[in-house]
């Protein structure tokens, strides 16, 4: 892990500003630390020399001022760090979302979408610690350490040398111990992963375990996996903690060495008390930021790991053909004839998923596309939607549909309902510009719901995130209603439903089929991807997708 990823500065301007402000504040803090030590030394030497309080009073006043200044600077640095974190997160989030939108649905489908959104939200929040705790200390290490060493050197060469010798030992030992820890950790990693999920496995499967009368036996199992988890983790930790030990030891031993060396030279009269005390007060400050960096390393690495994932997305330069085509999107007017697929093929990487499909879908008919699992039905639909590039031609009413054309002739419902937070009416009217709440649209929403066979759901029902609050079958039909609404409201000529009835009982399925028949009767091309016997029976036209022999 790099302590400061240059890509952070490249992708988030706010990070650059923070580094500048932070460096200035760090410099000011360092100066305040030096002045504080100097004033304190002065006050103490006066005291030892037997000066009365009156003489020391100005020094004390100045010291009080420095104390206040120090605390203000600490405050300012924290403010700067937290502001920096908020701005950087916001900038990175905007960039990644824009990138995701540009890459399109097919790219998202090739990743775990839940993981993707976690990275953009809570994953990024791990950057808080990186900014608030780690980065300021890193800045201080880079700014304060050399200045303080220079000051110590200028006061007392021997103490300066002690610090100069010890400081490089710290990263050296940290790296050595890090190496050892890494190999121990890698050995243990798999086992630890398994053991740490062991408890989850037992709790999650408790229903199953009870069915088989096994719940009582799990007490021993939990105890033994946890105990094994403890012994293995401790094995790793014993080594990991060594790096902290070395840090502490180096810091405190060098203070001790400096104190003893100063003491011995004071006896000889080779050094003044004022100089000795000043150096002794500065010595721990040299090590403080390095120790903090070490202590915050873990908290910070979470944030960096999250940032790393984002950078991987942002750095991904492979341009998708679809997104390029989209930029040249143009609208074509189509008539109301048949939809024709002529030699349509789709490749994914080197694999041919769909090989020269020829199919004709007539207006006024309900057509069913079927084929065994994995034959590429959904891929074909994605190609029609323009999510995946294809070769071959697609014509509607004899006019070729260009690759980049907007799909305003097409209304679609996918296998996943894909509903949103909001009312059912808002969901059904998604994306239609005229989605105000005029009576006509309301009645169209009701009609769409009825044709989708889900009249029992009120348009005013409020759904949670991702359409929570409906049963799976209802959600599926509301999604179908959304496609039907689009077909009716924007006069789309083609309607494609991908497995619309997989979660439906036969009554609900029959209701949907009646609605689809109405749409076909209006002269539309209606395409249903399905296996269900009832759907196939109701179709005018069945298109069988053949399995690719060489796939």
């Amino acid at each position: 892990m790099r302590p400061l990823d240059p890509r952070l500065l490249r992708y988030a301007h706010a990070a650059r500003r923070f580094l500048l402000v932070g460096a200035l504040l760090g410099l000011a803090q360092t100066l305040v630390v030096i002045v504080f030590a100097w004033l304190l030394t002065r006050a103490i030497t006066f005291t030892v020399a037997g000066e009365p309080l009156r003489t020391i009073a100005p020094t004390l006043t100045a010291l009080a001022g420095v104390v206040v200044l120090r605390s203000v600077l600490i405050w300012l640095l924290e403010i700067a760090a937290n502001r920096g974190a908020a701005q950087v997160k916001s900038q990175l989030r905007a960039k990644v979302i824009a990138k995701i939108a540009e890459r399109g649905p097919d790219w998202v489908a090739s990743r775990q979408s839940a993981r993707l959104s976690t990275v953009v939200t809570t994953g990024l929040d791990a950057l808080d610690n990186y900014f608030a705790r780690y980065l300021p200390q890193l800045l201080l290490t880079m700014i304060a350490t050399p200045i303080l060493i220079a000051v110590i050197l200028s006061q007392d060469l021997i103490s300066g040398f002690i610090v100069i010798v010890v400081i490089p030992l710290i990263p050296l030992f940290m790296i050595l111990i890090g190496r050892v820890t890494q190999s121990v950790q890698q050995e243990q990693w798999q086992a630890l992963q398994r053991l740490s999920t062991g408890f989850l496995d037992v709790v999650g499967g408790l229903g199953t375990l009870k069915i088989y009368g096994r719940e009582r036996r799990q007490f021993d199992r939990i105890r033994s996996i946890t105990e094994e988890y403890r012994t293995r983790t401790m094995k790793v930790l014993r080594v990991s903690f060594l790096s902290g030990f070395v840090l502490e030891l180096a810091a405190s031993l060098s203070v001790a060495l400096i104190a003893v060396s100063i003491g011995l030279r004071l006896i000889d009269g080779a050094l003044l008390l004022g100089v000795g005390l000043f150096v002794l007060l500065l010595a721990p400050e040299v090590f403080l930021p390095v120790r903090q960096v070490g202590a915050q390393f873990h908290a910070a690495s979470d944030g960096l790991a999250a940032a790393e994932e984002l950078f991987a997305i942002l750095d991904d330069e492979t341009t998708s053909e679809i997104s390029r085509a989209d930029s040249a999107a143009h609208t074509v007017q189509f008539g109301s004839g048949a939809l024709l697929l002529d030699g349509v093929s789709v490749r994914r990487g080197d694999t041919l998923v769909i090989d020269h499909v020829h199919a004709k879908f007539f207006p006024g008919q309900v057509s069913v596309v079927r084929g065994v699992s994995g034959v590429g039905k959904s891929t074909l639909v994605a190609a029609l939607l323009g999510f995946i590039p294809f070769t071959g031609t697609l014509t509607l009413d004899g006019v070729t549909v260009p690759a980049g054309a907007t799909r305003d002739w097409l209304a679609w419902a996918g296998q996943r309902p894909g509903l949103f937070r909001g009312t059912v009416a808002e969901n059904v009217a998604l994306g239609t510009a005229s989605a105000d709440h005029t009576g006509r649209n309301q009645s169209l929403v009701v009609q769409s719901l009825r044709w989708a066979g889900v009249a029992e759901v009120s348009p005013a029902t409020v759904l949670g995130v991702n359409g929570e609050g409906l049963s799976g079958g209802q959600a599926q039909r509301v999604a179908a209603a959304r496609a039907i609404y689009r077909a009716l409201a924007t006069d789309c000529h083609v309607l494609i439903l991908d497995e619309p009835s997989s979660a439906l009982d036969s009554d609900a399925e029959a209701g949907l089929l009646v609605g689809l028949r109405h749409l076909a009767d209006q002269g539309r091309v209606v395409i249903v991807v399905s296996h269900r016997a009832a759907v196939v029976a109701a179709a005018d036209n069945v298109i069988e997708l053949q399995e690719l022999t060489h796939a």
Partner: protein
Amino acid sequence: MPEVTLSTPTRDVLRLAQPRPRWFVPGLLAGIGSAVLAVALLACSAWLITVAAGMPSLAVLGLAVVGVRAFAIFRSVFRYLERVSSHDSAFRQLAELRLGMFRRIVPIAPAGLTSTGRGDLLTRLVRDVDDLQDLPLRVVQPLLVAAITALLSVVGIWLIVPAAGLTLLVCLLLAAILGTFFSGTLSARADRELAPLRGSLADEVLEIVENLDVLTAFDALNPRLEQLAQTDARLRKAALRRSVGIGVQSAVVSLFAGAATLGALYFGVPALDSGGGLLSPVLLGPTVIVAVLVPMAVFEVFGMIPLAGSAWRQVRVGASRVADVVPTAVPGEIPVDGVDPQTLFAPDRAIGPVVLELTDLGARWPGQHQPGVAGVTLRLAPGDRVHLAGPSGAGKTTLAQTLVRFLDYTGSYRLNGVETRLLAQSEVRRMVGLCEQRPWLFDDSIRQNLLFARDTATDAELDAVLARVGLTEWSRARGGLDARVGERGSLVSGGQAQRIALARALLANFPVLIVDEPTANVDSAGADALVRDILTAAADAHRAVLLISHTPVPDELVTARVTLPARTGGNPQDQSM
């Protein structure tokens, strides 16, 4: 800590997290040792230098020289020991913590854990339980170490310059009170302000990313992105506003650290002037210097307290979440065994044929007002294969959960004529088995996932049962019984998981077998074949099978059909259809 108004259940959870003294004290002692030595190191160094400035003989300093070096080394050694020992004790307690939680979960699972029905919530519960380790590690231990070290230092300085000791005490107390006050109220307010914004941002991102296809296909992406940008801007503004408050705490601590040093100087100088006290004049000067410098070291140790404060807020939130999800008392809707249950078949005897009868059976989920299922009358005799159908929300899953006694019932539910309420739950579950809608596969081999149904089964028997459910080729392709199924069965498709679950149920040889929506997570191409295979494999003259399914079932496979009427109530787990 202030603002401690913990509910009793939360306190019970927290109590489980704190290790017993025998484990906890060694780490605590090492921690105190390390912190005290850190203060002593500075004190001894300062003393050494100021005494040396008086140019005494080397012998006077001998002890101090040894002391400084020893403190430096042992401070780090103790710190290492503290970390090892406190982590070890926290892990030891983790076993107790998990067992304690498990003991509470067992009687209510799975029906009483409905709010954890979603996998991510369950994961969070388990993680919350595990995160309670932070209580001893990051809250109790640092608080005690800091408090005891501070107290010892105050006493030490008070002995030298009483007024300086009191100043230090006052500064420490003020720093602690104001520091926690500021960080407590400010971060609480910030969290109140930011949490909902963070939540809605996360929801919006999730909706956009997961439904990018829908948004693109419906030309609705750009308005969504604009809306997201607005939410993000609101969150950013709120975060910027609150950044002012966050640093106050460190600033306050630093301010009082300085005040303590100033106070020690202010009171120390006259003390030196007047002379006297416990010490001889020669040693007085250096000792007063120690009194001036020690507060700096004490406040460094004291820096642990704010961190402990924020750790405490997290632990407390986690503990109350755990307490909410896992109630201390078993809800009334979940059955509890009677004191002296009747027995139909002795535990050491084989189970004979079983007839299941329901009369006007009803059941309700915990926390629901409406019954999830009502008025069911049904008879299942050996050899019966009944298809139970019904629209969404009719209570099919509720019925399945009731039959294996995860939910209590109203009306009558008899096995061989005996009301099941009078039987032990474990005995009912020897007679009535369930293949759940989402069968849980354990992160282990196929063999282990089958063996727990009957641990005496030989490999040949396991292979035979896999053949019956149509998994022979599949298991062979993956390397046989030793193939792993992945975390939560992630390496296994929905249909294969159902087949493994059925194989498990066949091994256990339940006289009554309920199969709940086996096709819920299977694409429709595989659904028909799966239903057919299940009914064929489970068919047996000695077994009664109740297949719950919304998909049509061919007539020749079943002996009877029952349809549950639609209901308005519904239940939280009946969501997948």
